[in-house]
């Protein structure tokens, strides 16, 4: 397991139960340490298909196909992966396909790696530019409500919605491991 300082990851189990209750079937991911627990839970759920990607834009196309075929999905990625998705998100916007993504933030609260900062700072703005509605809970308590509301908005109102999971919630990466 990746080492994360300062935080416990009990929120992961609660987020996973929201995904279960929303009937999520395809879980596409490029891993982030902050998503490690959720990915494990999805992989062990017989109703979910965890799909490991080589790049995040594959997940946008995959989930468009999933919904066209009658299944709901979610894309789990790190903020640095949002840049890889931009052109593929044009399809989501033009076709108004429900799209839910949970993004583990890097490059913001207490970041150690300067190379993460440009994309982390640009993440919310870029998503909004591509027509994605952005929720940004600041606390673990707000996170569950945000994921639930985002899933409702995505699948009931046919919208693209991203939940940015702050490093305040995930914790810092431990570089002294």
């Amino acid at each position: 397991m990746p080492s994360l300082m300062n935080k416990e990851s009990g929120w992961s189990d609660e987020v996973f139960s929201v995904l279960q209750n929303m009937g999520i079937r395809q879980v596409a991911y490029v891993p982030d340490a902050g998503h490690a627990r959720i990915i494990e839970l999805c992989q062990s759920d017989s109703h979910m298909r965890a799909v490991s990607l080589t790049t995040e834009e594959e997940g946008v196309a995959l989930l468009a196909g999933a919904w066209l075929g009658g299944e709901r999905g979610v894309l789990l990625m790190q903020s640095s992966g949002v840049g890889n998705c931009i052109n593929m998100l044009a399809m989501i916007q033009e076709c108004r396909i429900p799209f839910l993504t949970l993004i583990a933030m890097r490059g913001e609260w207490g970041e150690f790696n300067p190379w993460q900062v440009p994309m982390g700072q640009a993440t919310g703005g870029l998503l909004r530019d591509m027509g994605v509605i952005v929720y940004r809970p600041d606390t673990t308590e707000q996170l569950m409500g945000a994921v639930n509301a985002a899933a409702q908005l995505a699948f009931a109102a046919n919208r693209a919605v991203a939940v940015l999971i702050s490093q305040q919630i995930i914790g810092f990466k431990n570089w002294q491991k």
Partner: protein
Amino acid sequence: MTPQDEITLDRREAVARILEDRGDALLITGLGSTTWDAAAVGDYPRNFYLWGAMGGAALLGLGVALAQPHRRVLVITGDGEMLMGLGGLATIAVQRPGNLSVVVIDNESYGETGMQKTHTHHGVDLAGLAAAAGFPTSRTIYSRGELEETVSLLYEACGPVFAVVKVEATVAPTVLPPRDGPYLRDRFRGAVLGDGASE
């Protein structure tokens, strides 16, 4: 490089031959010429055309195939479109969807932008890449005879199946299918899901 004198197949004839046997298979086409090829055969609700999202056709097909495991899903795309999403071959091979076939209509050119040569013209072997990724069936087709032998595999072999069809670098007349995203989306979902499409 493929010797051009080995390439005798016409793209429109090849796509028409492949789709002749499609039955109730679902069809995804990539941005550009392969969408016109499919439209020239006929526009149907079980077709979903990518008018953008270059590099996404095969992965969109994977999503449909995983959601509809009892239906055959056929992706027909071009060499330029496939080259933009090569990593997806690895993702598809790892998921191993038995009901997915990916066909690349390979004219070794970017047909919509002035026929600039793609990497396949310079020897990049897409079928070899798919086989190396783990596709259990992957082949390159140069002749009508090889195409005839392969069509049944596209619909019946346990997938994922990958086939590159080498075609002449000729420009066929543009045949435009519908392009409005919500229309294509609703029509496809209605064809696949029936009354469940509004859920």
